[in-house]
């Protein structure tokens, strides 16, 4: 083996070793890397008790209720939902049916008191007319089903 072949082999081996090591580390850290927990995980008791954590999902349609500066809404992952209370200013993109992440604590009664609410934007970028067309199509589909 020529010296440069040896160096290639060493570099390749080194890269493979680093790759495997980081894959194992990331795998071990999996749940800690997650930015938020889902409502299902909260209901199943997998969320940290008495500690601050983030809960993420969709803002349930028709669940937003305003009471002065305090907002009540439910975060859902379509399977389970968690009621959230938050006092403060919400980001512009915070809407029903859209993603949101709330940071705070879970109360003994199962409600979530948030100290911070972030809107989670999805990967769809389109003009208002296109969104209108999508809404119309979905409505039409609903009518057909009924």
């Amino acid at each position, binding site marked *: 083996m020529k010296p*440069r072949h040896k*160096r*290639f082999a060493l*570099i390749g081996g*080194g*890269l493979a070793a*680093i*790759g495997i090591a*980081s894959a194992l580390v*990331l795998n071990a850290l*999996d749940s800690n*890397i*997650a*930015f*938020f927990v*889902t409502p299902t995980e909260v209901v199943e008791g997998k969320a940290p008790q008495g500690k601050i954590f983030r809960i*993420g999902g969709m803002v349930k349609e028709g669940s937003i209720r305003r009471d002065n500066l305090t907002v009540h809404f439910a975060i859902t992952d379509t399977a389970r939902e968690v009621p959230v209370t938050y006092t403060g200013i*919400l*980001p*512009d*993109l*915070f*809407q029903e049916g*859209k993603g949101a*992440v709330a940071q705070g604590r879970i109360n003994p009664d199962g409600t979530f008191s948030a100290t*911070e*609410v*972030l*809107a*989670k*934007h*999805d*990967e*769809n*970028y*389109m*003009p*208002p*007319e*296109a*969104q209108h067309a999508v809404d119309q199509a979905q409505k039409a589909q609903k009518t057909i089903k009924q």
Partner: protein
Amino acid sequence: MSNNKIINWFKYASPQSFYPVAGRMIPWFWGLAAIFFVVGLYISFFVAPTDFQQGEGYRIIFIHVPAAWMSMFIYLVMAFWAGLGLALNTRLSSMMAQALAPTGAIMAFLSLWTGAWWGKPMWGAWWVWDARLTSALILFFLYIGFIALQAAIDDARRADKAGAILALVGVVNVPIIYFSVKWWNTLHQGASVSLTKAPSMATTMLWGMLIMALAFWMYSIAVALTRVRAIILEREAHTEWVKELPEVKQ
């Protein structure tokens, strides 16, 4: 006869023959960069429609996404050249790696900065420690580390070797950045454009973004070639051919 047709790539692996070739290529890349920037920015600001939800604020993607793509791609290219320099002991490869690092760092910084500007109005936070943002920040630090390490070692060849090892170790971070939004739940949205599915954005927006990405490509190539020429002059200053160059003689 057939031998004449094949380009002898190894000829261009020597700084002496690469220097004039790079010099001839640079104006072309600058020209293409200018054209793509003008067309891309025009589409971005005047042709692409307003987003249904984010309004005009979404237009940051025309800088943010190309810069983020570039920052990851330049890192891969930089690590490739650095690794090649380490394995083959070719001086020009290491010089290419050194020339790419500052541009990559600028791209990484641009993506973080524009992202923060977008994040405040859209998410409600300048910065969050989710997997995508954190790994992108690490990429920026890797670039800075590479530049600093190379600058800290006086002997150029030893600096190349140390830098190459750092660059190669850092390569693991690139797939982590790219797939972070898929592997873990993050605040950062998933990819709007990927090889595996149809893009989830309006066509004119997509075109604006792709043309801007091309502009960033051309700019990066032009700048990297300009920089590698400067590095060649610096490192080969002791050689006869550099002393004979008209621009050096003056």
